[in-house]
């Protein structure tokens, strides 16, 4: 993975935490990172070139006006007032290359001296074992602090440990071995048995990022929410809010403006396509 600094920019030594999206249902992690970049006023500091990422370019996603600033598939932003670095990923990973991508990203994050990696992602609500009244508002987490994924700070904030994280489970174990370089895809154990419910979670991109960052000795926290495909803007607010809680940031004061609050990215005006053609009616 190559990193090119934007002209006149440098990576700050005062941003120990880094936020990454994990590709997932509803693109919730990516939407949450968009919201946080826009709301913190984070500035782009560089571009990352990764061979396992599909190419994709566009106009400035944040505004307030689209001035033609080229957006690339993988970019690094920083907000020193919030001591925060963010990486936004805009295009998919080549099928079968997710672990490679996660390893390269973990190598990069480690090389720039980050201390805490926070991964934002989502889970398919159709996979929930039990549905309770407040389940759609609950944020789940997995942490590298303890072997079972538990972290007292997250518990104090009201996040719930993802019960399906079990490092002894066959696929979690295999993923850890891939992340640590102890094996490769050619040595994949036979998973010919029908996939069981618990095979879903270690197969997701957030799990690859978590395992690879953990293998580099980084402190990692995954923040997750259940959702369905559709309008996932509300889910992204929930996840971004959870990230702010973990980072001890106040959403109302992120932008530094008197009126505070979230700053909606310019690109969200058309995130679900154009409005319906009213000339039909």
């Amino acid at each position, binding site marked *: 993975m*190559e990193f*090119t600094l*934007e*002209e006149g920019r440098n990576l700050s030594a005062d941003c120990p935490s880094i936020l990454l999206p994990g*590709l*997932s*249902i509803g*693109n919730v992690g990516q939407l949450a990172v968009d919201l946080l970049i826009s709301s913190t006023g984070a500035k782009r500091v560089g*571009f990352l*070139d990764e*061979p396992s990422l*599909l*190419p*994709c*370019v*566009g*106009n*400035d*996603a944040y*505004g307030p006006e*689209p*001035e*033609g*600033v*080229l957006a*690339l*598939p993988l970019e690094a932003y920083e907000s020193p007032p919030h001591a925060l670095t963010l990486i936004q990923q*805009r*295009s*998919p990973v*080549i*099928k*079968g*290359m*997710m*672990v*490679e991508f*996660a390893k390269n990203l973990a190598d990069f994050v480690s090389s720039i001296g980050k201390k805490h990696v926070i991964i934002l992602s989502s889970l398919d609500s159709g996979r929930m074992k039990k549905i309770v009244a407040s389940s759609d508002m609950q944020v789940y987490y997995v942490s590298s602090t303890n072997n079972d994924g538990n972290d007292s700070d997250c518990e104090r904030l009201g996040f719930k440990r993802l019960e399906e994280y079990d490092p002894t489970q066959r*696929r979690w174990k*295999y*993923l850890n071995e*891939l992340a640590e370089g102890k094996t490769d*895809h050619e040595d*994949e154990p036979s*998973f010919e048995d029908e996939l069981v419910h618990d095979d879903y979670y*270690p*197969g*997701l*991109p957030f*799990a*690859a990022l978590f395992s690879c960052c953990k293998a580099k000795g980084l402190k990692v926290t995954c923040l997750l929410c259940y959702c369905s*495909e559709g309008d996932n803007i509300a889910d992204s607010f929930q996840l971004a809010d959870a990230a702010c809680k973990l980072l001890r940031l106040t959403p109302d004061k992120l932008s530094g403006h008197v009126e505070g609050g979230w700053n909606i990215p*310019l*690109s*969200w*005006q*058309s*995130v679900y396509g*154009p409005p319906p*053609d009213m000339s039909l009616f």
Partner: protein
Amino acid sequence: MEDVVTESPPPSRFFQEDLDNFATPPPPLPPPLLLLDPKLGPDHIRPPLLIVALSAPSLAVLHRIPHKILIGTLILPETPLAGNSLEPCPRDRSCYIYAVDHRPASAVLVAVQFPVAAERARAVAKSLLGAIQAERVLIFGSIGSQNYRGRLAVDETLAFKLETVEERSGGQPLVQGVDYLPSGSVMDGLGAAVIAECQMRRAKGTLVATWPANGRSTVVPIIRSLLQGLSIDVGASDADDEFDAGWSFSSRYVSDLYT
């Protein structure tokens, strides 16, 4: 009517298999092979302008440019060459590299006449820009309906551009009179890979995206005008310009079964 169960998901949605950490990686492919005339001087390897034609209208214009000299080709080993002719032909599944030395402008032209899989686009972009280090790069691509967040009517002609940071901040833009691609819409494929590679190299690059993809009668005049503005001789226009170039047309006729 499309099957709602099996139809492709809308843009930015994933199939579960696309997100699977344990999916089998694709088989490794040999790198693209870029062949340039060994007698080339440095002017052709470091031209003032590199033009990459990806869209059918831009290929049609490029093939009509007079006084161009074939100086090389780019080969993707996985692209079958069956049916290609010995002499450059706009219907071939080939990538031809030409030089135009007609004063006052000189440029290297790349006509990409076969589809480049998204997974290969980065490698092709690196090959091209590694071998041909132009002062400025101009790419002509097509807007994909699945990537555009506004309405696209088949009888409407659109042209947008994207520029690298260095192009935007480097004084007079190469392409004028064309709006930026609206925020929220994206370009993918080889065009995106080439301009992204320009940005990584901090080079001046411009991607012009047009619609409709095969709008030769409406898009060709726009491209001709842009090139004429760069002092490129685009040759005589043909009112009937049914000159079909590029893979999007030729793919209807080309098959490995027929040679």
